[in-house]
């Protein structure tokens, strides 16, 4: 094993022997890429011509007036092609896959955003593509499954374990240990064994680089706080990394689910329930029992419904560099309503967690303070979940009629 990397006491590479040579190959390829100044340029060019980079920052005038505190800015990752920040990582890893001469990509997906992004990249670069998705997530994110298949990907429902994101990751690893010769595993978040946390944070750092420059240009100063939702942690690490050397308070918002004291949540760092463990190839905080068995997690947002968390974020929390909070499902739905009505923004349920926490804090901040929320993705994909939460009668009528049409 040529390289391992820890962030504080977290991270590492707890991998089976069969994958050691594959990881060595990936470490080498990534090192070449990092040392090649043309590569970042090529990457930025693709992101500006194929996706919508740089994504703008939006001054949320109505939120600012409504809360009467800090001036609120939104980083618009929702305006990326495929509708979320996931594409930043995926296009980068696609270039890496080409350099390694591999012809097939696999990925796990929770909300389906990473799956759609990977299927899109595979279509563009001509790779074969297989996406693993938990059965529970398939049931709540059907539109994304539809698109993945239209884009030419094979979508394999994962029926093991809790049938959500962590189980999809296990299934992808099981595929990879068989097919590593021609296949690259496009891991979707800043988790997993080294070098994945480093690779994904490298590509997602584009968010923070842009955001820092944009806010300085518009406001002439840095934000007091930056908010991002945290599932695995890729959008958070991406935007936070732009401000690591600045006097900016970084706030990660986890899924509070039905409440931190109910046991039905996915807060590994903001709750007292997370403990250090080793699973899925890396060491971090997990929601696990005293035997080390992973526990079921809950969130209204499939993309935050994950049992572990980035080793980079676990370490930043220990160093006191990132504060962790949580937002409940209900707070998230309320924040989403407000975003729709006040600003005409449609944040994904994941991203709405960051909005919810910012809304709790903005009123108590000074009118000269600036805060930034990372809108990591757009919420169109969540239409079924959101319509259910609103118990929207007209939508239900439409679905019933549509179903009858199919039955006829």
């Amino acid at each position, binding site marked *: 094993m040529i390289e391992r990397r820890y962030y504080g006491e977290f991270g590492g590479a707890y991998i089976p*022997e069969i994958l050691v040579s594959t990881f060595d190959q990936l470490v080498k390829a990534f090192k070449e890429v990092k040392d090649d100044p043309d590569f970042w340029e090529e990457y930025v060019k693709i992101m500006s011509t194929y996706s919508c980079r740089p994504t703008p920052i939006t001054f949320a005038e109505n939120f600012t007036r409504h809360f009467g505190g800090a001036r609120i800015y939104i980083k618009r990752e929702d305006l990326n092609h495929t509708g979320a920040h996931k594409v930043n990582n995926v296009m980068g890893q696609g270039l890496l896959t080409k350099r390694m001469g591999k012809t097939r990509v696999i990925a796990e997906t929770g909300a389906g955003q990473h799956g759609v992004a990977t299927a899109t990249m595979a279509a563009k670069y001509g790779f074969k593509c297989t996406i693993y998705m938990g059965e529970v997530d398939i049931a709540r994110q059907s539109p994304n499954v539809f698109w993945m298949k239209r884009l030419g990907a094979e979508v394999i429902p994962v029926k093991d374990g809790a049938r959500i994101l962590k189980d999809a990751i296990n299934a992808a690893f*099981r595929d990879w240990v068989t097919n590593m010769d021609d296949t690259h595993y496009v891991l979707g978040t800043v988790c997993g064994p080294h070098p994945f946390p480093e690779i994904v944070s490298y590509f997602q750092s584009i968010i923070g680089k842009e955001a820092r420059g944009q806010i300085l240009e518009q406001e002439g100063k840095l934000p007091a706080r930056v908010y991002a939702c945290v599932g695995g942690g890729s959008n958070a690490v991406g935007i936070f990394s732009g401000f690591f050397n600045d006097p900016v308070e970084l706030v990660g918002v986890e899924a509070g689910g039905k409440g931190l004291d109910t046991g039905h949540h996915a807060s590994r760092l903001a709750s007292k329930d997370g403990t250090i463990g080793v699973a899925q190839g890396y060491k971090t905080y997990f929601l696990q029992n005293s035997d*080390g068995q992973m526990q079921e997690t809950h969130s209204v947002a499939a993309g935050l419904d994950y049992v572990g968390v980035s080793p980079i974020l676990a370490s930043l929390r220990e160093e006191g560099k990132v504060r962790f909070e949580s937002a409940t499902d209900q707070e998230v739905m309320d924040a989403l309503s407000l975003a729709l009505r006040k600003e005409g923004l449609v944040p994904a349920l994941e991203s709405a967690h960051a909005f919810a926490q910012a809304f709790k804090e903005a009123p108590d901040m000074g009118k000269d303070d600036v805060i930034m929320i990372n809108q990591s993705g757009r919420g169109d994909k969540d239409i079924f979940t959101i319509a259910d939460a609103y118990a929207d009668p007209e939508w239900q009528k439409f679905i019933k009629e549509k179903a009858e049409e199919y039955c006829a």
Partner: protein
Amino acid sequence: MLESYLRNRLKKKDILLMTHIVLGYPSFDASLRIIESMAEAGVDLMELQIPFSEPTADGPVILRANQTALRCGATVEDCLSLAEKVTHTFDIPFLIMSYYNILFKYGVDDFISVMANCNLQGAIIPDLPPEEGREYLDAMEEHTLCPILLFSPTTSQERMRYLASFGKGFIYCVARKGVTGQDTDFSKDLETYLVRCRNATPLPLALGFGVKEKADIDFLRGKADIAIIGTQTIRIIEQVGVAAVGDFIRGLR
């Protein structure tokens, strides 16, 4: 100790058999009965898997066995107490197989001293490369237990020698890419791989992943020292029943 036991056995038999079970699957009573019939059928050593919720190296059959055992409430304590019982009842060496988090959460040192107290002989931890396993390797050495290291067909000759330098008892040679329970091609390639393994270490070689019938074991005679039967016994238990295990094992050699 384990190595000399194996070498003595190899004077009498040209290939040894190691079997695997998932503790608590389908129940702890059944586990005990399976171990009993395996020992009576002449198995030379056994690996006892402590179930884990994320068994990433295992294929669907063992994965489901892990999940079922956990759903039925299997705990690490239950597993260790059954392990203690069988090491005192049956006259063959027993090893623990599990994933690193089970040891880590228990406390690596504590887990390993309990293993020693239970008279277990060693452990197989497939997600713990030696680079990450310093604490584990030191504690195993302190308690004179055998860390069983794994080779795979993608392991270079140099790395095989590196891995072997930490291994005790024997080396677990993974037969092919993939997870447990898929078919293995018992071919010239496998033979070449086993020759590579043999050149990298003086330790006895065990071959596992996809070994399921007499023909496979006949193929391995003279090429490996131990054949490992994992998934296939679980299939037999599921398809025929616990009572069929003894005959299955007896029919392998």
